[in-house]
Every structure is written in C-alpha cells, then in structure tokens.
C-alpha cells in the first residue's frame, strides 16, 4: 500500500503514504473527530504518523519554526523564546488536496493542525535524544526514524539523506509555502547509472593530541592560534566526505609545518607506525613513561612560538580532484612498492601513463607550497628511470619515447637545481650515473640517448666538460650504425636520435665557445664524423642568436611561456620518420619575420587576435594511442605593425574541435612511414570569432603555407588553407630553419644571448 516517490536524484528520498492510508485518515477526521471519543488510539497514531510522513510532500505550509530542524540550536539561545507555533491549517488542505480530497472542513483542518503539530514536535524532541546519544551535532533522518519507532510508528523507509535537505520557499497570492522540490525521475536512468563507489571503511589513526601537556603542532591538531577563537563555536575545517584518511582528515599544513614534520618524525609518525608506537613505547620512544628525555626537547620549541605558524588558507578541492590527488600521490611517492607507478608502468611500457606521471612530478616541483625535500629520494629514481630506461614503450620503433626522455631529463635538471646541496650531492651523483651509462659500450641507444639528454640538460658547463670531449667517439659509433649494414631498425632510429640530440645541444655551446668562422674541416678534425653537421648547426645557432637579439631590439614583446608543456617532438632530420609527430614550439619567441610575412599574406584585418591551436594526431596504423602533440600560443602575432601586444584581449570563445582526416593531403615528405596509414588530426582552435574556422577543414587540398619554409606535415596545409587561419601558424618545425630558430622551449632556460 505504499509507494516511493523518487525525488531529485538517485536515491529514493521521500516516502509518502498511499492514497488508501491518506483517505483513511481524512475520512476519520472528516467525521469531525468523533474517533477520539471512540478511543481509536491506534488510528490517532497512524493519523499523526501519516501526516508526519505527509509533510515531506511537495507542498506544505510553514514549518514549525525551529522545532526539529534547528532543535539543538535553540538550546543555545540565552533567553527563552518558545513560540507555540503550529502548522497552518492551509497545510492540511494542501496535503489533503495532494491526496485527492478537495473538500475538507475548516474545523477538521484546525484539529488536524493541532494534532499534527504536537506529534511532530514530540517526534522531533525524541529525535533529538537520538542525536545526542549518537554523539552528533546534526539531526539526521535516521534519528527521526528511531523516534518514530519509539512511538510504534513505522519509520519512513528510504528517506535517507546525509546532508541538509533544503526546503524551497515560494510566496504569492497571499500564500507562503515551503516546499520540497520533487522531480520525477525515470527509473531506467537510475537503474542504468553505475553504482556509486563504495565509501571508505572506518579506520583508526593515532596521533599525539598532547605531549606532557603541550600540544604538538602537527597537522592532526588544530593550529594553536585557533584555540581561543574556536572556543565558543568550533569552526571546523571543511574536508570532503569521500577521501582518504591521510588527506582528508587533515588539510595540508603550511610548508614550515611540513618541514617540521619532516624533520621531527617523532611527532608525526605515519599511521602504520604510530598505532603501536605510543602504546608500547617503542617506535621513537614516545611513551612518556620512559621516553622522557627525547620528548622534552620538542615541546618547549613549539611552546615558545605558537604564533609563528601562519593561519593557513584552504583551497577546496573537488572530490574528484582529491581522489585523483590521492591516487596519484600514492602511485608516485607512496610507500607501497607495488603501487608505485613508475616501476609498474615501466615494466608494462605504458608510455602514456609515464608521461602523465612525469608531468605530475613537474607539477609537484612547480608547486611552491610543497616541501618536497623528504620525497626527493623517492622522486629521483622514478624520473631517472624515465630517462635511461632501455624501453619505455611497447613499440620503440614507433612511439615517441624520446620526448619523454627529454622531458624527464629537464625534470632531473630542475631537481638538481632545486635540491642539490653540498651535503646530498644530488647533481654529482646524477652526473655520475649518466656518464657511467653513456660510457659503457654496451649501452643501448635508448639509454644512451637518455644519458646524453640528462647530461645536456644540466647546463653548458656539463656539456662542455662531459659531452664535447666525447663527441668524436660518439660520432663514430653513430656513423657505424647509420652507414653500416642495417642490422636493426631500432638501433638506427636510436642512433639517429642521439645524433640530432647531440647536434641540438652542442651547437649552441659551440657557437659560444668557438670564434665565428666556422669551418667544416676544422670541425671534422675536431669532432670526427659529426663535424660537418655540427658546423652547419653552429652556423644556424649563431644566426638565431643574432636574430633573437634583433627581435628583442625590435619589440619588447618576448613572452616566454613560463610553464613548459611536454611536447613530443620530431627530430628535424630527413629520413625515416615516425608518423604523426609534429613539433609546435611551446614558446613564443618566434622569428618575427615569419609572422610578418604571414601577415602580409593575410587580408587586411585590423587587429588579428591570437589563436590557439592544439593539434592532435593519431596514427591508426601504428599504435592506437593518441598523442597530444603540442600546444602553442601565438600571442605576439600582432606585434609587427602595432607595437602594443594584444595578448590580454583574448576573447573567451568556445574552442572548436575538428577531426580531419588527412590521409591523402599530406605532402610526400611527411608521408607516414606506415604504408596506407590514415592520419587524423584534431585541430582545436580558439578563434577570435566563430567565422573562418571552417576553412582549414573544408580545404583538404594542400595550399602553400604562408611561411617561407615548406611544411613537412599536413598541419601547415591545414592551417594555411585559409589566409586568416594562416596568419599565425606555428612555424613548421620540420624545416631546418624553423628548427634552428626554435628556442629550446619547454621550460629549459633559453641560452643566453
């Protein structure tokens, strides 16, 4: 005889009595309440029960002010203010109407009102008792259920809500209504929704609330300064409901505190250790009974400066973010070996995940509020692995693990810069590791590449002292592979990469070291087989340096992207090429000429706003993983004619994402190596206006790009399809010129001019 109304959400939240019950009640009351005399106690009970239930109906009048919902709060009011509020009889009418009874006498309404008000208050008062005994400050729906149970009334099955259930208010026509919004929800929606996650289980965590009378300043305890302020009404910190204990229970502590925690493990034992620690007096000897000597030191220190700690500000992370954070932290620096992600993913060769992990490490490094010192020893091996591991992906011949190595190498360099001290010698240890693996004859090309990259990122001095002397030797080795009989395609690719890496890093250094006249022969004599190539690179490097200087002179606009993105770059070498790789510089320091020429080709447009491109490509032939190639901002595009940049006026427009199939449109030079492979590009652009974006996609035929350099990849064709789209295309990376002029973006400091 009962049915559920499902209201606003996934759970059945409200239960209302069925018609039958309701009309029972109303017919009883309609007979002018003669039922009382007939001693129908049961009926009375049920009536009130039903009405109490009925109050969850969508429409209902004034709630008794304060009762129930605010019951406990009222107790705090100093001066008694008991109002004998009752439900308005209109409520009864509305309830009756909602059950299909149109006519109900005023007198009946009044009687029902009194009765219901009384019963509701009674139940609310009982419910408060359950709240108190449950040691809570909040009344919950289950408290009401238990209170109903006490009265032998059937509880409201299914009416569960952890949180406050808001009543909505409406007025009009002289009537004021509080109602409970009720949506009709399709059952199949509910059935088809995936089950919610199982909440975390209860667990115990121990910490020191006080050590011999002093409260240690650990994250588990509230900040000392708050003590007084919080006295009357403790305002607790708001962590979210579903999160791991370690994270949620205690919001992040300020850096100093983390440092204290890190340096004084005594007071912040990890959950696992601590449980027995304090009890058994082992651990750090923390039991006051026998650990006195050690502890005495800590409290006075803290006692002396209780106000030194800044009040922390709290950023609320969404539940998803927290979950993510928890997972990722655990995966990265957790103590559980099995969970530590780099190891797992290296074994599984999951390149995509490794990239994400490295990005996360980068993000951690960039976060100025974290005190990472104590985790560095956990971080370094992971990052190093990503640099020098023999294999990082499933298909080393196709996947671009080189970019990951480059990125990780930059990370290591950053770590060295931040954390290396004379005591821990991180930099020298890392250098030693790299050198050792590079020097070893049997090292595979992948590791070789990583070691060189790692060394190169450590700075010019390292390149000068460690790489340059070995250039000749390495050149021979490369030649041996490239020119020799084709033994293994993988080796070939590796050697190829190593060569371009060496050229890339050594050229700028050499350009500074050597006086200008660059002679191919001199280079060959000094650096062996790599000499000529090196020479041409040095020339280019010089040219670019000059160019940059010029650019700096011309416009003050050199916006360097502070945050590097991980770009999977394609080495600008002719020859076999992995498909679908496209290099778009992450930095803005583009040669202005390019832009100017691009503008010249463009139809006159007063102020061409910047456009963002995200080019994604997926090669269906090789691996199914999609690779995000690059992100480029072409902000300084306006800089040529008007000197004032317009970077700040980017209108917020929805990005347009297009999927373009360019199987046939790619120029031959960029044809993917996989025969017959179909390459897809996704162009995401943030257009200044919606117009003109159809252009690239609607022009599959390659058109000459406005840049002077031929574009090796379909992207320029795409971008160049329409003049306005081409006004700020990234310079095609594949060309020697573009490449040469390309700043070593992605976060590593540009070589000093």
């Amino acid at each position: 005889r009962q049915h559920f109304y499902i209201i606003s959400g996934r759970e059945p939240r409200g239960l209302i009595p069925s018609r039958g019950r309701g009309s029972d009640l109303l017919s009883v009351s309609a007979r002018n309440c003669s039922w009382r005399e007939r001693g129908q106690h049961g009926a009375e009970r049920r009536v009130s029960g039903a009405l109490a239930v009925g109050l969850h109906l969508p429409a209902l009048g004034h709630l008794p002010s304060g009762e129930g919902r605010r019951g406990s709060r009222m107790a705090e009011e100093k001066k008694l203010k008991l109002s004998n509020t009752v439900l308005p009889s209109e409520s009864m009418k509305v309830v009756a109407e909602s059950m299909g009874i149109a006519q109900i006498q005023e007198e009946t309404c009044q009687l029902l009102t009194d009765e219901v008000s009384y019963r509701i208050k009674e139940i609310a008062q009982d419910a408060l008792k359950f709240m108190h005994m449950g040691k809570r400050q909040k009344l919950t729906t289950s408290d009401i259920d238990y209170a109903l149970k006490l009265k032998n009334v059937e509880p409201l099955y299914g009416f569960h809500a952890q949180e406050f259930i808001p009543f909505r208010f409406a007025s009009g026509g002289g009537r004021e209504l509080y109602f409970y919004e009720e949506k009709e929800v399709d059952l199949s929606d509910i059935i088809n929704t995936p089950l919610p996650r199982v909440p975390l289980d209860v667990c115990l965590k121990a910490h020191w609330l006080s050590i011999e009378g002093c409260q240690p300043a650990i994250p588990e305890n509230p900040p000392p300064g708050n003590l007084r302020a919080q006295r009357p009404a403790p305002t607790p910190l708001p962590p979210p409901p579903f999160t791991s204990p370690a994270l949620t229970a205690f919001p992040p502590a300020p850096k100093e505190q983390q440092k204290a925690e890190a340096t004084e493990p005594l007071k912040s034992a990890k959950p696992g250790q601590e449980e027995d620690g304090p009890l058994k007096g082992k651990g750090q000897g923390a039991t006051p009974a026998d650990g006195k000597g050690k502890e005495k030191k800590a409290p006075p220190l803290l006692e002396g400066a209780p106000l030194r700690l800044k009040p922390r500000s709290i950023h609320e992370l969404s539940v998803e973010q927290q979950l993510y954070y928890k997972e990722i932290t655990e995966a990265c620096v957790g103590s559980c070996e099995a969970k530590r992600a780099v190891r797992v993913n290296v074994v599984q060769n999951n390149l995509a995940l490794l990239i994400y992990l490295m990005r996360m490490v980068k993000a951690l490094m960039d976060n100025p509020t974290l005190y990472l010192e104590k985790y560095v020893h956990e971080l370094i091996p992971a990052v190093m692995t990503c640099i020098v591991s023999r294999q990082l992906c499933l298909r080393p011949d196709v996947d671009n693990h080189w970019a990951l190595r480059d990125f990780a190498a930059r990370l290591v360099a950053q770590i060295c810069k931040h954390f290396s001290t004379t005591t821990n010698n991180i930099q020298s240890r890392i250098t030693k590791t790299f050198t050792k693996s590079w020097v070893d004859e049997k090292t595979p090309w992948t590791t070789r590449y990583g070691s060189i990259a790692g060394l190169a990122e450590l700075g010019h001095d390292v390149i000068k002292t460690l790489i340059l002397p070995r250039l000749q030797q390495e050149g021979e080795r490369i030649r041996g592979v490239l020119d020799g009989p084709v033994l293994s395609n993988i080796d070939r690719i590796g050697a190829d990469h190593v060569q371009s890496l060496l050229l890339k890093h050594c050229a700028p250094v050499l350009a500074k070291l050597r006086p200008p006249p660059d002679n191919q022969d001199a280079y060959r004599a000094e650096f062996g087989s790599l000499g000529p190539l090196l020479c041409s690179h040095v020339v280019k490097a010089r040219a670019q340096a000059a160019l940059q200087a010029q650019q700096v002179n011309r416009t003050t606009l050199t916006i360097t992207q502070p945050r590097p993105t991980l770009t999977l770059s394609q080495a600008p070498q002719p020859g076999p090429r992995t498909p679908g790789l496209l290099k778009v510089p992450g930095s803005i320091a583009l040669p202005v000429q390019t832009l100017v020429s691009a503008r010249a080709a463009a139809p006159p447009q007063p102020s061409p706003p910047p456009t963002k491109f995200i080019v994604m490509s997926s090669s269906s032939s090789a691996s199914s993983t999609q690779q995000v190639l690059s992100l480029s901002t072409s902000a300084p595009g306006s800089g040529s004619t008007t000197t004032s940049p317009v970077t700040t006026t980017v209108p917020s427009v929805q990005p347009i994402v297009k999927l373009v199939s360019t199987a046939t449109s790619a120029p031959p030079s960029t044809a993917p190596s996989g025969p017959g492979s179909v390459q897809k590009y996704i162009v995401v652009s943030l257009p200044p206006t919606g117009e003109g974006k159809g252009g690239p996609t609607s022009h599959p035929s390659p058109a000459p790009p406005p840049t002077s350099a031929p574009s090796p990849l379909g992207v320029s064709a795409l971008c160049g399809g329409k003049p306005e789209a081409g006004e700020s295309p990234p310079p095609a990376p594949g060309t020697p010129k573009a490449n040469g002029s390309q700043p070593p973006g992605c976060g590593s400091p540009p070589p000093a001019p």
Partner: protein
Amino acid sequence: MAALAEEQTEVAVKLEPEGPPTLLPPQTGDSAGEGGGGTTNNGPNGGGGNVAASSSSAGGDGGTPKPSVAVSAVAPAGAAPVPAAAPEAGAPHDRQTLLAVLQFLRQSNLREAEEALRREARLLEEAVAGSGAPGEADGAGAETASALLSRVTASAPGPAAPDPPVSGASGSAAVSGLAAGPAAPGKVGSVAVEDQPDVSAVLSAYNQQGDPTMYEEYYSGLKHFIECSLDCHRAELSQLFYPLFVHMYLELVYNQHENEAKSFFEKFHGDQECYYQDDLRVLSSLTKKEHMKGNETMLDFRTSKFVLRISRDSYQLLKRHLQEKQNNQIWNIVQEHLYIDIFDGMPRSKQQIDAMVGSLAGEAKREANKSKVFFGLLKEPEIEVPLDDEDEEGENEEGKPKKKKPKKDSIGSKSKKQDPNAPPQNRIPLPELKDSDKLDKIMNMKETTKRVRLGPDCLPSICFYTFLNAYQGLTAVDVTDDSSLIAGGFADSTVRVWSVTPKKLRSVKQAADLSLIDKESDDVLERIMDEKTASELKILYGHSGPVYGASFSPDRNYLLSSSEDGTVRLWSLQTFTCLVGYKGHNYPVWDTQFSPYGYYFVSGGHDRVARLWATDHYQPLRIFAGHLADVNCTRFHPNSNYVATGSADRTVRLWDVLNGNCVRIFTGHKGPIHSLTFSPNGRFLATGATDGRVLLWDIGHGLMVGELKGHSDTVCSLRFSRDGEILASGSMDNTVRLWDAIKAFEDLETDDFTTATGHINLPENSQELLLGTYMTKSTPVVHLHFTRRNLVLAAGAYSPQ
C-alpha cells in the same frame, strides 16, 4: 496532597538469595522485567508493585529509614506479602496506605474519622466510591483505585495484614496535622495522595479548578509577593515559580481552557530559569487535553512531586501570604504537587540554591542521601607480591630498584589493609579469580611501578585515536584496561574491535581442528588460535540498530554492546561471535558496563530503568527503577557494590547492588547527564552533562563538592587517572580538558552542619583547576582512558561539518 512519588518509583526487584556466587535473578523475572519496560503506558513504577508494598507496609518496622519499597517480582495480581523494608511510623504514606486506612475505618465503623480523612483527601472519594468494580487495574483511574482497594481488602485478613492501630494512627496523625492546616509545622506535603502512573488517574488530580481566567492573576500576585519579599527569602521562594507555572499550565490545559493556557504560557514562560527550557519546550507543545495522554514528561510532573528545599522562615512567609490572599488555587498546588523540604536555619543564598536545583523533579530530599554507603575499595587478593618481587629485580636493569621497592610495598600494604569504609568482602558474591586474572594482575602491578606520577607539573600525554571515515556513525567506544584493544560501536549496527598493539586478533580454531591439538602441550593456548584469522580488525554483526554502549570485560574475553534494538549482546573475543542477547529493555539501551570484577554488568536505557545482569543469566538480577527519564549512562563503583546511573531527568543516582535500593540522589545538573566516572579510591563521583559542566560528588556524605566549568558542549567522557590525581574530560566541543583532581578534593572539610543540611558552598575555582585544554580537529571526544602507566588515550570520530 503530598505524594511521595519518588519513593514509590524506587521499585527494586528483590529476591531471596539462594546462595553464591550470584545475586539471584527473579524467579518470575519475566513479568518484572518486561513490565518495567514500558514508558508510554505504565512506567517502571508499575501499580502492582505498590500494592504489595502497601499491604505489608504496616507489618514491617525494622526497615531502613529510606522508604524505598522493595517489591517481590511476582506478578502484580498476587499481592503476596514480602519481607520488605517498610516505612517507619510517621514516615510519609502513600495512597495505598491511605486507602487501606479508609477501608479499615469503614470496617471499624469509625465514620467520623473516615469522613475527616476523606475530606482531607477529597480526591479519593471517587476512587473509594467505585470500590465495587472488580477487574484488573488497566483502565481508568477509578478502576485502578478500586482494584487497589479491593486487593487491600482481600489481603487484609491475610497473615501479613497491616497492623491497624499503627498505620491508622500514623496516617491519621499526619492527616490531622494537615487538617490543622497552617498550624501544623513542618508536616506539609507529607501525606500521599496517590502515585498512579495510570494517566487518567494522574490527570484527574487536575480536575478541581478555579476560575481559569484568574490563573494569571494568581500567578502574578504570587510573583509580585515574592519579588517584594526580603532578599534573603526571595531566592528561596523563587523556586516556587517553575513548579507552580508548570502545574497551573497543566491544569488549564487539562480543563480545556486552551486559550487561557496559551496566554498563561506566553506571559510567564520567560520568567523561568533557563535550565528548564527543555521541559518548557515539551510543555509548550502540550496544548490539548488529548496530548496529555501518553506524554512522558507530563507524567513525570504528575507522578513525582517537585521537591523544594526551603527554610522555615521563608515557608512561613509564603504560607501567611497565601492565607491572607485566600489564594486557594496556589495553595492546593503547593499541597498536592510539591514536596517542601523544610529546614531550620538561615535561608540559602541564590548561589546555593542554583547549585542544587535543575533536575526534572527539583532537589533531592535530604533524607534520600542519608543512608550509609560503603565506598571503600575491596581488599585485593595478595597472590602476586612474591612473584612480583622477583620479576622486578630481574627486569630492572638500568636502575632504581631501591626506589621502586618501597613504592610497591606501599601499594601492597595498602591493599592489605581493610578500608574502614569498604563493604564486607562478601557483601555481594564475586567471581573467583582465575589463573589468567592473576597473571593479569601481576602484569598490572608491573605496569603500575612504571606509572607516571601525575600532577599539575607533570601532565599526561594524550594519544588520540581518530576514527576516520565513520560518517558521523561512531556512537560508542571502549578500551580494555590494559589498553590493548579498542572497540567502537557504530550507527550501522556493527561493533568493531581493533587491536592497537602489534598482536593481531585471532579467533579460536574450529572444533574439528581443536580436537587435533595436544592438550598437554605448554603452548596450548597458542595452538588453539587460528593464524589464518589474524587481523587487526574484527567486525561483530548482530545488532539491528545503532550501538550506543560498549564495554570490555576485565579479562578481555568478552565484550558487551547495547543497542537501539533493545538488547545487550555479549560477544566472545575468542571466537568473535555473539554469545548471548540479553533482552529486557524493550527500548533503546543507551549504555552498558561490566563490573570491575567481571561477571556482572549493568545496562540502562530509554525505559528509565537500569538493570543489573549476570552474564550467565538471561534475566536481570536487579532492576533499578526511579529515574524519571532515560538512563543515559551507567557505571559500576570500583568495589562493584554500587552502580551509578545518570539520567535525562538531570539526576544521578547511586544504587546498591545488594538490595536494589537507591542510596544517593544527586541533583544539580542542568541538562541530561551523559558521562560518569568514579574516582579510583571510590570516594568521589564525577558527572558530566549536556550543560558542559562537570560536577564532583562526595559519595560518603552525599554532597556536591565541586563544579568544573569550561566545556561549551556535552561532556561525553570522563576519567580519573589511575591514581586519581587528574580528571580528564572530553566533550562534544572537541576538546579534552585536564583538571587538578587533587586540588579539587583537597580542602574538603565537610563539617557536620553541611552534612546535615546539605547546604554547599562551591568554590568558584574552575579556572585554577583547569590544567590544560587540548583541542582536536573537529573530533568530538567520545571516550577517554588512562593506561596503566597514566597515558591518556582519547577517541572520537572525525566529523567533517
């Protein structure tokens, strides 16, 4: 007229002990147990019990001065006389006595006396008139009364017939005293009208009435008088406001003057003391006569007389005023619904009064706290001393064996001496010590030697166990005495037991596997454990409602849990299964606790009674009835001879396990009591309530000796340090506070005057006594525990707000 409801509600189930080792359960415990459970219908103070009491009241004369009525556990209909304690002559009589007297007078043709008596107890006329009606006392009040009467008649010729001259004399003496009215000094309110829990009977007392429109006038007249009286009297007379207000309001409502009632309430409720607001809130919702049926709070007001303690001078003043004004309405209420405990001497100050009032039924009567309580500790068996010596020497390598020895000796000698205040060793049968218990005692002794001496300069460290992800569901916590296990009761009906030492929890092997074990081997206790089951956490499923109480047995073999489902469950910590479900409380059981000696345990719940159980009896051994509202918490005295209960009626009571009597009633709290703890020496009791205050009581003298103010919310947990130097309190306001217990009790000079009058002057020294406040992060402190080395363990569930 004065109904001594309080005494009558103290019904104790008392039995002839058949022999050790247990206090025996009632033979027909069913009816007693279940019948006492009702709150909405008949309270624990069931009518049947009183009948039996009254029939024998005149027969016994050697009873305690405390007029607790012991009742046989047999069904109410059987008014079999029992050798119960009876009130002495001259002591207040109850309604049944009066009825018996009337009956007797009628039989003896003493018409005049009968008339006179009846005039006094006008109310009874209807009841007596309807004496012809037979039947069980479950209907209207008249019926009940008549049934009572007929039963009295029936039992009169029996062997235990009341001694007519005595009871008659005493009854009429009291009555005539009253009839003399104002002239009778100090006897006011001493004659019982009735104590019928039956609603109709109770309500009928409100039948007589004056002009409803005059009520406001009456009340404001009295108010004016009191406010204009001398300062010294004003405070005392102000106590009248609240009970008068309540009863006048109820009379108005009962007689269906709803509008007058409403306006009366509106007008005067603001004058009442703030600590009555909970009751006032209940009252304010009572607007119709129909509502009064089945309202427990209403019943409380009616069935129990509100006790006021007023000096003779003030009382005379009041009486004179009421007579002058011919204010019969108020006079009637004073006579019928209030018990005025008159004392000679100086009127009390406002502070003195405020300290003691606040409970649902006013202050405790002075004589309620007069009986002797054996608060001393039992003698410890002296098994472990030699063993201990050897161990100490062997273990103490690094150092101060000399220092420790005398200390230990003193401990030993202390336990050897018999405490003069201790109960006889075998006052109640206690379980014999097992070998494992002896081992545990030895361990305890060893730990004791390493105990930190606490004091204001040496505060204990607090280790806080936070229950994470409890989703507001943690309702009870307990820690074993040796601090190795921690149990949590949760709103989802589970009980979870954690091991907080590296030793994991293991259950015993299956029976089949057990049979394979070599029982002679030395490590048989190890061998019976199933390694496969080892885990840090065991979850016990069995309850069907939130678990509000949990308690480990002293030997750590059992765990008790009490729940909303009305049961107390006993769990084995060897097998992690439920052994027994104790049914008796039909309503939520708020708390349960094992006796410090094991075997017995006590539980208290929504049905307003506390019950004493033994683990091997599925019926309660004692029912401690008397509280006027839920029994929120229960604690055993360290000597296991007494049980303290804290209640939502804002009183604390101490019950004698031996005979079920209520031996102490402590009033003074202004909110429901949620925590109790005895000091380790058994002399003192500390109680905490929703008002955030902790009160300290001297059990021997029955006096409040201290008040600790500081918490801003319910005090949920209290614990003394092992040597009683420090009192720790934990609260819903997310703090743990440490108090200097030594100082709080140190200059206690309880002179005879204070003891006799119960007038207390509390020093305002909370701030001096407060040694530390430790704030948790949004974690109410649900439980506190001192380890054997005096480290504080606190526990609570983190509750994001």
